[in-house]
């Protein structure tokens, strides 16, 4: 008898888990179908190319791991990876922190909140051509606003656009203007923090600073995780801004290749040198690096990300 009940239970659990699986698949089916329809073939093709000599026109020639081996002997592979890591390490966290501070300020109940919020979003909407003109002027070492400001307090500003040591910091600096979308997402996340938490804290007499670290920050930690990972991924694929900036100096890689970012070098290999095989190997190498960091962040996230939906 007891055995039968246990069996029934096991069947029940299995049935239930199968039902859960079916529901889960049903809900996620849009993406899964799209993946098989539009993404799988390009991804597999790119992986196959990475194992071949392929010039985009004649049939790919199998070379096994040859392209990957070549990568490690390529000076520019290391250089472009260094430039990319630089912009990632120096850029991601400050931009994120800045966006969060802005979101907190914009979430405060002040008159004209809507107006302020709109203003902060505006730079995101300025097209690149107009934006780059503005940068060129701001960062100009002679008559640019930044260096004029610096000289007013007795500092001789660097030659931002020409000195290879300063081209990447220039990009990071300009990146602060592009944080509008991150701010919006943080704003949305802040709307989900239950108000009663703050009321309780207020009664306990907790300071604003304490309230931020004990209530706000944990509550929006899922958003912080999202931003950290997505900004990491996009920073590793840093492309357009670098190209616009470098073009202003009339070369693909900027002064002394200081703006030769990984994706730009990859693009050059693929579409200028027609080494699609090699470029694909670069793409997959980047995939591995980014995947490694992403998994690392997900691993640690259990310690600092709190989901209200988890028990």
């Amino acid at each position, binding site marked *: 008898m007891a055995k039968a009940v246990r069996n029934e239970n096991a069947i029940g659990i299995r049935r239930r888990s199968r039902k859960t699986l079916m529901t889960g698949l049903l809900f996620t089916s849009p993406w899964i179908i799209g993946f098989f329809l539009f993404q799988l073939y390009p991804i597999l093709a790119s992986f196959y190319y990475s194992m071949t000599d392929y010039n985009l*026109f004649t049939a790919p020639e199998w070379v096994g791991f040859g392209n990957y081996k070549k990568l490690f002997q390529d000076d520019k592979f290391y250089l472009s990876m260094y430039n990319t890591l630089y912009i990632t390490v120096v850029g991601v966290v400050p931009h994120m922190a800045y966006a969060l501070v802005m979101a907190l300020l914009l979430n405060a109940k002040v008159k004209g909140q809507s107006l302020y919020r709109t203003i902060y979003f505006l730079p995101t909407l300025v097209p690149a051509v107009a934006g780059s003109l503005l940068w*060129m002027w701001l960062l100009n070492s002679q008559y640019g606003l930044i260096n004029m400001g610096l000289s007013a307090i007795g500092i001789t500003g660097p030659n931002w656009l020409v000195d290879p040591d300063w081209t990447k910091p220039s990009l990071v600096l300009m990146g602060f203007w592009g944080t509008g979308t991150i701010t919006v997402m943080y704003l949305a996340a802040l709307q989900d923090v239950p108000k009663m938490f703050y009321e309780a804290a207020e009664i306990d007499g907790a300071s604003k600073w304490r309230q931020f670290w004990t209530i706000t920050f944990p509550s929006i930690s899922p958003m912080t995780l999202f931003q950290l990972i997505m900004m990491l991924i996009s920073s590793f694929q840093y492309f357009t801004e670098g190209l616009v900036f470098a073009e202003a100096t009339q070369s693909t890689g900027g002064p*002394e290749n200081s703006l030769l970012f990984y994706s730009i070098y990859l693009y050059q290999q693929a579409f200028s040198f027609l080494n699609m095989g090699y470029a694909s190997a670069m793409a997959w190498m980047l995939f591995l690096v980014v995947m490694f960091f992403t998994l690392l962040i997900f691993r640690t996230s259990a310690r600092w990300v709190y989901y209200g939906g988890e028990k």
Partner: protein
Amino acid sequence: MLRKKTLAFISSTVVALSLLAGCGSNNDAANPASGSPSASSGAKPQEKVEISFWTTYSDADAGPITALVDNFNKSQDRITVKMLGNQDPTKQLTAISGGAAPDVLLTYWNNIGPWADAGAVLDLTEKIAQSGFDVNAVIPAAMERMKINGKVYAMPFTMSMASSLMYNKADFEEAGITKPPETLEELFEYAKKLTKKDADGNITQIGFIPDYPWIDNVFWPIIFGGSWIDEATGRVTPNAEANVKAIAYQRSFYEEFGQNQIDKFKSGMGKRGTPQDPLLTGQLAMYIGWEYNFMPERGEDGPIGVAPFPYPADRPDLKGSGMVSPRAVFIPAKAKHKDEAWEFIQYLMQTDTQVQYSLDAHVIPTLTAALSDDRLYVDSNKTMWPFYERAKSENLNGFPNSPYINEYLQALTEETEKALKGTLSPQEAMDNVAKKIQPLADKK
């Protein structure tokens, strides 16, 4: 409440718009304009073939080429050319590789080498032989750029040319200079005279910057009679004596005026091609001139003077040297209507067409005969006259087209930059280029 209303509004707009656009695209589909030959027009018994022609020109520059295409479409009733502008090389490459190649494309000449080598470009040898097209009627320096391993893959529709020195007349006058420099040695002396510094040693006006607006890794070696490949041995020759001399000459300006000083001054110069262009404001006195620079300002009464670019004093045989950068038209190997495409290209390469285009777009024709055509020598076209003359020079040259041309050019730029900054000697830098590129040359 607001949410429901907004949602309803959004969804109704979407529906309305999708109907609108749906109608639009249906209409388009009904039109025989989607790349396939149109048998549906019915009116004409003959089958009219539609060929697609992609160019890099955006609307801002597309006027003259549109006029040519219209002309061609009107001139005969077998072929309709449908032109599409703003097609950058990445798009061109993606479409050709992706199996949706148009019939004719206009692109930058340095794409021809790699694309032809990869098998994307139709070898024109046969078409040229069949139609009796005279390749020798084309300016050799332009035609040479269309050849890979001796085979012709494209036609140079137009060309740009750097063989002039442009200068600020007021700067010259102020410095008491009455005529432009003859030789490179004079150019250097003039540059010194035309450079001013303030009390702190900062440059306030400069005579000449050899790598402004960009590092010119083809122009300078040509001026010194350099070369890039020895066809006989298959060796690349970026480190040949003349090439190294060309770099050393450029470096001498930096040694004379100071690296930091030039860098600093350069960053304070106005934007090129605007009213604040440094040559117009006189911040910069001399400049490597192309035919498209300072179109109105280089007129007789304008502020900008034009002269032949100087030559090395010990090489008077190099007088009239200059660099040619043509724009290529080609047929993809997988084009649907190759014959019609070739017919259109032939039209583009006719003297009448070339003359018309030169008048409209102020470019240099690529047919030798067109350079002397009376129709070009009208007063309204006066600023172009000296350039037509200079285009006849036998010392015009260009970078050899090859499968690895873009790697070669990139390496030259990188190493020249190091040499100009003084981190490497010109010889070391160019040896590096040879080391990097020789393996690629051996492979092909």
